[in-house]
């Protein structure tokens, strides 16, 4: 007997490619088992962090695979309806193309309205319901109480692509790396998922000859690594940004991050809303008050409402520590 897709996902050890790396088979299973008059499947294509552009690449080259993955999901969890949540740019770029592939399938395209980070699932679901774009309290989780309170499977574009490949037995444990910054050969590359970052940069002819550092997992919330620390695989969304150490002004870089967070956070909770505001205020004044920063990061890490807020400190702390600022 042919193996069902959930078993295949389990064997393939596929983890969500949006960044949180939750085992895909478990998520699918939870939605499948969940009780509900109705179920939804949602493809998260809200990709919006600087330096992350692999979903765009996947839509350019593999839209059929993504739709196929979604269709498999709909069949598996018994969802009659699905949405693709697209950021504004991707909606304009790929809307028509996707519609042609979707044809009679009950998959609708949704154009993201604001600029807030919708990578977080429940924020995305609120946007789909035309509610304020901010995270929901968890539990309950989307797998049981998702879109319009029905069990909902939310997966990233790349995850659906992988599902399709796994289903066709074509999956080779690869992932898509977005490589950018001070490199010669920027772009998106499909390579083995557990290759060390160093190898990824070398194989793509991107290993810099200059002194550099990299940011992994997003051009705002990603962590900073030094060249000698690149023997581990890239986590999260697989984005690698290379910075020329000599040419990069770390204060300017941090200001850029802070501005991104001020613009893209949802402002719901005190530590993230006010913490990021104070961080930006301080950096704009060209100050680096370590004591205040430690406090703000502590409050965000420990008490922010959602993972975005909890993760704000990561780039700043690692940059300050590693560049000995």
């Amino acid at each position: 007997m042919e193996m069902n897709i959930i078993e295949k996902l389990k064997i393939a050890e596929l983890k969500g490619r949006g960044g949180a790396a939750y085992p895909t088979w478990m998520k699918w299973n939870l939605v499948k088992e969940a009780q509900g008059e109705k179920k939804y499947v949602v493809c998260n294509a809200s990709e919006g962090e600087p330096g992350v552009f692999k979903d765009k690449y996947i839509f350019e080259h593999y839209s059929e695979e993504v739709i196929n993955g979604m269709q498999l999901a709909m069949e598996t969890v018994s969802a009659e309806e699905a949405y693709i949540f697209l950021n504004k740019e991707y909606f304009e770029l790929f809307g028509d193309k996707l519609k042609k592939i979707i044809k009679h399938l009950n998959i609708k395209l949704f154009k993201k309205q604001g600029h807030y980070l919708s990578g977080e699932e429940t924020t995305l679901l609120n946007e789909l319901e035309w509610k304020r774009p901010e995270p929901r309290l968890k539990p309950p989780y989307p797998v049981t109480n998702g879109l319009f309170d029905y069990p909902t499977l939310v997966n990233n574009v790349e995850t659906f692509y992988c599902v399709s490949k796994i289903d066709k037995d074509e999956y080779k444990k690869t992932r898509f790396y977005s490589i950018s910054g001070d490199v010669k050969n920027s772009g998106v590359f499909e390579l083995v998922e557990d290759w060390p970052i160093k190898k990824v940069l070398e194989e793509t002819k991107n290993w810099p000859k200059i002194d550099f550092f990299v940011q992994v997992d997003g051009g705002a919330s990603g962590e900073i690594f030094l060249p000698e620390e690149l023997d581990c695989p890239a986590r999260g969304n697989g984005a690698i940004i290379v910075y020329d150490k000599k040419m990069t002004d770390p204060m300017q870089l941090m200001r850029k991050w802070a501005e991104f967070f001020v613009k893209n956070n949802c402002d719901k909770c005190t530590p993230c809303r006010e913490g990021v505001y104070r961080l930006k205020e301080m950096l704009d004044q060209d100050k680096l008050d370590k004591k205040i920063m430690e406090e703000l990061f502590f409050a965000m890490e420990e008490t922010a409402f959602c993972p975005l807020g909890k993760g704000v400190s990561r780039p700043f702390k690692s940059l300050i520590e590693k560049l000995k600022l």
Partner: protein
Amino acid sequence: MKKIDIIIDNKKITTEIGKTILEVAKENDIEIPSLCWHPDLDVKATCRVCVIEVKGKNCLFTACSTKVEEGMEIITDSPKIRKARKINLELIISQHREECGDCVYSLGCELLKMAKEYDADFQKYEDRRKDFPAYRFGPSVLFDSSKCINCRNCVEVCEKQGVGFLELEEKDNIWEVVPSKDPKKDCIYCGQCLTHCPVGAFEAIGEFEGSENVLIKEKGKTLVVQFAPAVRVAIGEEFGMEPGEDCTEKIAAGLKQLGVDCVFDVCVGADFTTNAEVEECVECITKNKNLPVLTSCCPAWVKYIEFYEPEFIKNLTTARSPHIILGGVLKTYWAKQQNKKPEDIVVVSVMPCTAKKYEITRKELEIDGMKPVDFVLTTRELAFIFKRHGIDLKKIKGVPCDNPFGDPSGAGIIYGASGGVLESAIRTAYKKLTGNDFPGLKFEAVRGMEGIKKAEVDMGGRIIKIAVCNGVGNAKKILEEVKKNPDAYQYIEVMACPGGCIGGGGQPVPMTPEIRAKRAKGLYKIDVNKRVRKAEDNPQIQKVYKEFFSDKEVYEKICYTKFSQKEKEN
């Protein structure tokens, strides 16, 4: 509910599954500080002050949003917790422009209390919102956005009221609370934003600035103060008394000490309203005209109908609200009796309400160009004035209100609680139509704090279907029902605030369901001890009816009004 055992701060507690840590802590008198949490509202978990530790878990959790689990060990105080609370408090303080002398939280400002407890530095950051604007909503409510801490309670409660006038707008990349520019949305002045704001960003217009002058007597004028039923069972809270304690005579004594000439009771006005309303209502019901009848003594509800649901304007009873009728009587009948010129009488109403400040600006209420009521003070404002003058209601020896309008029926007293207006009307109408007293003079089905109460009354062979709503959101549900089935009810009482006027926007804060229930209980206690229990039996109003209201034109002018569709005002 399934029982589970948990431990909070080494104390073993048996509780039920489904509750949050904060709820269980409150039930067991364990203090966890919180700001955005309010028992009337959903858990939003925005302020992040109520953080606690759970043994075996690394990060902190918010007690308001985390549900208890079997065997959970919770720690509510540790260096880590204190540090997190202190930082978040400092961030909150940096949003909030302090103006502690002028704040609705005269006693018990949680933010200030916590700031002291956690040694929060007020000067750490410059106030982010120091230049933020203050918005005025009609003559009723002031929103000083330089004090807002973005907890969003006001937005939620405004939505719950079915109004949605307060909303979020992105300003310099931060979502801030603003009044809506949508032409289809307007403030109804209920003031529930104020009672649900944890940091006093809302206040009544006139509150603190200028309200005091209202009670300073001008030479040659007669200063009359009348106060509403709900005021007497709440004002004591501002002086450390229990909610529900009857302060009728203490208020009268305090006002006298301030030099007020006469102190009258709005409950006597309520007796007038009941009579006028029953007269109209009986006619509507017997002639099957403009049914269901909707009560109209709540000005926030009236504004809601006039703006949001104008097709129901014809259903509003045209009987004037209690303080407006009594004000009118004072400036006509009483003025003549006292040999005073009406323009020399200044009538001030002390009300549990911010919308009453709006009501008195209505042109159509004027009697021969004269306003029945000149000023409205909220319960809080009166307490503030008393305190300014060193009057402690807790200590003051009470005196009775003045006659001829100081002794209401019990029916007039219960006007302040949800269901009270309707019960008063039923007591009168029942007697009128059946010749008997309503059984026990107690209409249990319409009492209590539930948002919607329904009942049927047999009025001498005719069954009258009744609905009582508190909170406009609840009233909206009943209106939807009526739109589908016009015969669903014949008589509907609506009070815009939770629990009725006792939960009004002019009442002391904080305000919780328990506090409202105690205030309502206080009113019903006064009612049962009254000699006269039905409006029409009150000799004080009987006298006016006999001596003055026999002239139908005068009666109409003083006791009835009209309503009209309203355009957006804010």
